[in-house]
């Protein structure tokens, strides 16, 4: 596969390490009430869709960026690639 890195252009997927669903960005607050259930759902449950999937890839053999790749997991077609830090910031990571 080729991942079109937002800064570097197309790079072979072999340079990347895969983590999983991009919902891992949405880490619950560990100090809030109901954290136990929230963390269970956050860490263990997955939509695991057959179509478009937003997922985390780490450019380990490259610029060390974490990316969010939107990919159709049935066709492997990649629809969008973003820097995870941009997405996290725009989602309003903790102040």
């Amino acid at each position, binding site marked *: *596969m080729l991942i079109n890195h937002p800064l570097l252009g197309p790079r*072979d*997927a*072999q340079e990347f*390490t*895969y*983590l*999983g*669903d991009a919902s891992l960005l949405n880490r619950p607050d560990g100090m809030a009430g109901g954290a136990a259930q929230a963390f*269970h759902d956050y*860490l*263990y*449950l*997955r*939509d*695991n*869709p*057959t179509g478009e*999937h937003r*997922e985390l*890839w780490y450019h380990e053999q490259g610029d060390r960026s974490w990316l969010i790749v939107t*990919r159709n*997991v*049935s*066709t*492997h077609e990649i629809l969008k690639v973003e820097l995870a830090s941009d997405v996290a910031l725009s989602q309003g990571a903790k102040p």
Partner: protein
Amino acid sequence: MKYSAARILWEGLTGHKGWKPVWRDPAPRPHYDIVIIGGGGHGLATAHYLAKVYGQRKIAVLEKGWIGGGNVGRNTTIIRSNYLLDGNEPFYEFSLKLWEGLEQDLNYNAMVSQRGIMNLIHSDAQRDAFRRRGNAMILNGADAELLTTEQVRNEAPFLNFENARFPIKGALMQRRGGTVRHDAVAWGFARSADSHGVDIIQNCEVTGFKIENGRVKGVETSRGFIGAGKVGVAVAGNSSKVMAMAGMRLPIESHVLQAFVSEGLKPIIPGVITFGAGHFYVSQSDKGGLVFGGDIDGYNSYAQRGNSPVVEDVAEGGMALMPIIGRARLLRMWGGIMDMSMDGSPFIDRTHIEGLYFNGGWSYGGFKATPASGHAFAHLLATDTPHDTAKAYRLDRFQSGAMIDEKGAGAQPNLH
């Protein structure tokens, strides 16, 4: 019809006119006591045991394509019970025992071949870990031996003992491990289930559940509604998709695992050899093809194909371990979809919907589990209680922290 050498002789002399279809091709009935979704190894095995062991009648197996077309038809055919953890080892040992009597049970030769499985050891820490595992196997009634380097050399003199990046320091051997002709498992279970009255309905895709007041009433299919007292789901590779129709999210990601076979070669490999340090395992089929594989590709996928880096990675492992295969050629590569669970271990459990039962998350260990999975799932469906060997395979185990994580990789499916 009973299969035997005499029967073959008779048919050979009479023009093979007497052979009948191995299973019928019935139209779906409006209602069954138990509907199994998924005509793969596990679904067919479940039907067989439901009918033969648990005396259930009015059973249907619904298959969206052709039976045995999923992972039972696209794996590397290995059977073994060399597991470490309490939650797994009794179950896989139960499975291995069922394999050992399977052909007589089914009257079908699936070529269960116990030529042994050898997990190579390359470091002291690995030996410690394998010693713990081997002891766990023995304590659970399985067989295990710790081999020295010299004993490994006797078993497989062609391995790279001289110029290896990871020198071979021994092996954990399970002599009862081996291989099975994978397609025949599906056909054998199908034939037996069919002969016990199970309707095997191919080209019948489930498109929805009918759930009323928290209880499942049947399934919508491409061939119309089929009512059911109980519904068991055994759809490896499609678990999340099917269970989503019942409104459930699962602790599962689907990944592609590639497997490979070489051109036919005169037999060289006695049993199964696994090279954990190099992500490579290999056996040789009765036709002479080296059957081998390695790690999953590592990304979510529902496409039954993988990519080149893993192919090369596996070949590197193969060449590192057995430099004699440099001039053997890879004939075919294919991919299967693994429902990788969050701890690498499966689920056989009821769901919060009454009458709906789930069997899945087999990760890459589903083939060897086929008979026990069918038996345990049949037990659960018939009695509403978990089978003794499958008690740990609960869907809620991550709530309590009772993970069954053989590799210690954590909640990241692609690492299991």
